[in-house]
């Protein structure tokens, strides 16, 4: 404890230093963490579960490799015809063929773009409307039932209307993806905000923090875990709605590749599109994981709300 003396200051003695140091010892429960690392160590799981990143990653590949083997077996032993189930190598060949012609990048690129733009728009809007409905009782009373009813409309029901209003171009597809991303974020955020600890909100208000600043300093960090899981669901929905949009009217994208391959009997390309969707979905989900770790680092883990 530093000692600094300034003219006109009041002198205090002994009390702050020593007894307070002793106070630490008198309150036993948390004393174990004090002075140690910045965060208490995570609770270890049962000893038999592997922990190193490499082992975990490798073990995660066991099942896909097994599936690949079964696939290969079923496609070569005559159980399925090549039209029903082409060999894995044929699918790889189809991928190579599309890659050389440049079509693969077009399909993957345009689909990813639609998902990313639609997801961004939809989840931003979901966060905004979710915040409004979660924080304002008036918004909840007025808009809650309407938004709930809109959520109940099946995704494909929007397609004819979107085509009629926005046309068959990019905008209608991005809008459909945005609709898909909107609802998971809206639902999780509005529900979580209603359960933020009222005591800390009141404490912040007593320090003159209100409005947007109250939202960004207290309420948003408090519901961050819910926001992240909402974003995860929203991303999955975005891919789902993307395929719906592309199946119905498009000339590019993985959904188009699916219908086009179906019409031309190219089961190899069809399977390729499915594998690509799985890989892209997992990759974009991993990006959310990166974002989650960044927010945890930035704000620390907020308690579950």
């Amino acid at each position, binding site marked *: 404890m530093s000692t*600094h003396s300034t003219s006109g200051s*009041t002198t*205090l*003695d002994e*009390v702050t230093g020593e007894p*307070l140091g002793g106070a630490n010892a*008198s309150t036993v429960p948390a004393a174990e963490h004090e002075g140690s690392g910045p965060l208490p160590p995570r609770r270890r799981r049962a000893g038999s579960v592997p922990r190193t990143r490499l082992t975990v990653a490798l073990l995660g590949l066991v099942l896909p490799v097994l599936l690949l083997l079964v696939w290969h077996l079923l496609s070569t032993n005559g159980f399925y015809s090549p039209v029903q189930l082409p060999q894995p190598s044929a699918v790889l060949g189809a991928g190579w063929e599309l890659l050389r012609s440049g079509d693969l990048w077009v399909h993957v690129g345009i689909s990813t773009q639609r998902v990313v733009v639609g997801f961004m728009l939809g989840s931003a809007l979901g966060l905004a409307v979710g915040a409004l409905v979660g924080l304002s009782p008036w918004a909840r009373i007025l808009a809650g039932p309407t938004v709930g009813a809109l959520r109940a409309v099946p995704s494909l029901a929007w397609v004819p209307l979107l085509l009629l209003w926005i046309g068959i171009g990019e905008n209608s597809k991005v809008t459909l993806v945005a609709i898909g991303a909107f609802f998971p974020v809206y639902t999780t955020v509005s529900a979580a905000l209603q359960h933020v600890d009222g005591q*800390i909100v*009141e404490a912040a208000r007593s320090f003159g923090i*209100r409005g947007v600043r109250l939202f960004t300093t207290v309420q948003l960090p408090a519901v961050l875990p819910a926001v992240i899981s909402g974003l995860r669901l929203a991303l999955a929905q975005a891919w789902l709605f993307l395929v719906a949009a592309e199946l119905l009217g498009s000339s590019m994208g993985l959904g188009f590749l699916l219908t086009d391959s179906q019409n031309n009997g190219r089961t190899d390309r069809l399977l390729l599109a499915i594998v690509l969707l799985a890989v892209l979905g997992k990759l974009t989900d991993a990006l959310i994981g990166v974002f989650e770790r960044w927010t945890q680092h930035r704000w620390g883990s907020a308690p579950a709300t």
Partner: protein
Amino acid sequence: MRHVLTRPDTALDAAAVSFENLGKSFPSRDGRYEQPVLTDVSFRVEPGEIVTVLGPSGCGKSTLLRAVGGLSAPTSGAVRIDDDVVSGIDPRCAVGFQEPRLLPWRTITKNVELGLPARTPSGTGRRRVAELLDLVGLTHHAGHRPGEVSGGMAQRASLARALARNPRVLLLDEPFGALDALTRIRMQDLLLQVHRADPTTVLMVTHDVEEALVLSDRVVVLTRETPTSPATVAEVLAPDLARPRSRDDTRLTAMRTHLLRLLGVER
């Protein structure tokens, strides 16, 4: 160890608080009638005084304090800070709650910063927070999160956050009630040090007779006739003794017996 506390350059003069026939009622559980909690409460806290409000639990002590901070509006009467009637959160007050109420995802430093008045220059703010953390003995835990420190430390951080606001009136709602006896005594000493360095007005709610007697210039006793009737001021006691006071002072013993009798405990 000697410790020197500088009065912050930004410190503002202490303000007076006056209660004028304050009354408060809450809607009953079924919403069919109003249950009065406080009635006709009138007293004045002079600038720089330490006044404690003593009363049985559930008698509306916290309600009284919340009315000063503007956290809830009285049903009748008014609270004035200096000459202004309180309406809404008042920037001249800072509240120390019974629970620390820290943001669990922020470090202790970042939590104390929340108390700084709006538009504090960042350099000044950082210096002030460091000074306050030093004062409450948390310099070495500045980077910890509330979940990683003890209850007593969290409560000290909460006090530092309230002081960061440079309040003209410091409102404390049983701030040491949840602490163990030893930590409580240390916190009381700390409060007196803080007050000596920067004599702001302190209005504190407690149900601990001992605490009221050791700390206050005056003790306002709230009582009610039955547990369902509203509470009002029964007596204002002024323990006219210099601080720090010994907890074994015989003059306090007599007052303690008197206060306990007022609260319905016969010895």
